[in-house]
């Protein structure tokens, strides 16, 4: 990875985590809305599509989809 990409990643990560200090526990109303919640997302998304379409995509079911959808890095289709 080029140095500028690393730098960009570090700045983006730092900027977003720095903002954490400004979100107080009593300010989480919107973040706790069902539309932001993993449970709601599970009822509106399904692994059936990812697995079926993944048959044509070599990296989506093994790594890309796994890292985005589940905590198991080797759980593919």
């Amino acid at each position, binding site marked *: 990875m080029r140095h500028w990409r690393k730098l960009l990643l570090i700045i*983006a*990560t730092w900027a*977003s*985590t720095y*903002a*954490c*200090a*400004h*979100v*107080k*526990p009593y*300010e*989480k*109303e*919107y*973040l706790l*809305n*069902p*539309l*932001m919640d993993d449970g*709601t*997302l599970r*009822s*509106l*998304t*399904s692994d*059936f*599509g990812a697995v*079926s*379409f993944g048959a*044509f*995509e*070599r*990296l*989506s079911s*093994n*790594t*890309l*989809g*796994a*890292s*985005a959808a589940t*905590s*198991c*890095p*080797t*759980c*593919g289709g």
Partner: protein
Amino acid sequence: MTASLSLQAALKICGPRIACLSSLLFITGTLGASTLSQEVGAYRDNQGTSRDRAKFDLNYQLVHSRAGLTASSYNFVASRDIYEKSGTDDEYMQDVYGSNQRINDAVSLAAAQTWQKLTETRVMAAETNDQVVKSRTVGLGASHWFWNETLQTSLDISRTQMQRPVFEILDEDSDIISPPPRLQSTGVTVGAKNLATTTTLMSYAVTHVETNDRPPANTYSAGVRQFIVPTRSAVHGSLARAVNRGRITTKTAYGEVDAWLAEVAYLQTLWRGARSRLGYRYYREDETSRASKNEYVRGSDTYSLSLAQELGDKVIEVAASRYFTNELEDGTRIAAGIVEAGIGFNF
């Protein structure tokens, strides 16, 4: 209506025994605690391939402390998929399964323990079996919240072992491609999730996967969820980059690959208890073949719409997706559709 369709589809896919179990679960569903859901799905494409699924998902929550700070949860999932290729005979299916149809059963069991609300530890085990190809996965992970529960870091490790028959093919340079009958892979994911503002949630993950037939694969992903206050809706976006390049041997059927995956979705509460999700997904994969070093580009677009309606302690879900690829190496373009329906009980 949806429950009836769901049961009929389960009966068709799994036979009367599972459908009876399904009916029993519907009746007993409201007596216990936690969540039970049943889903069915159907996939069809323009190449004559079909796939039907029935799935049961049981989530059980156990709270250990009065304040609810320490709790454990258990998740059991069982599914059956029936694949069928109609029209022309598929050489692989005929050689390995002796038929144009195969049935794949999958089960998984996961347990998670939350300690004083901030720390979670988890373990999982899964198995899939279609009577020819068998796969087993075990995994464990942990996560912890920092800074007033605004930054969560996580670490997950998993290992998969797969047994499959040897199916050799001839490559462009006349070398014989012979994938190993035992495939082993180990993966590690390091992730972070943070509440960036009072309406923004960010997530990041890096995954490294080692296998015994291909070079290591690395995936870098980032996601954002933005709540829009005036419309009480949300926009979710994610971007991932996967790189699987290095020395390619005759153990694997395809060359060096890397890919981009981008997804955006709009979520809206429609009326009381009704939520919708409209999504678009873009995938692009670049391949350099082993023998000729030819460059290939695969791409796909996916459009999806899903609805979930809460009715008391029940949730009814329906979803539809359309999937299109560009022209693949063999000159075909895949156009596929998926419909799904499900019903869940909170008990």
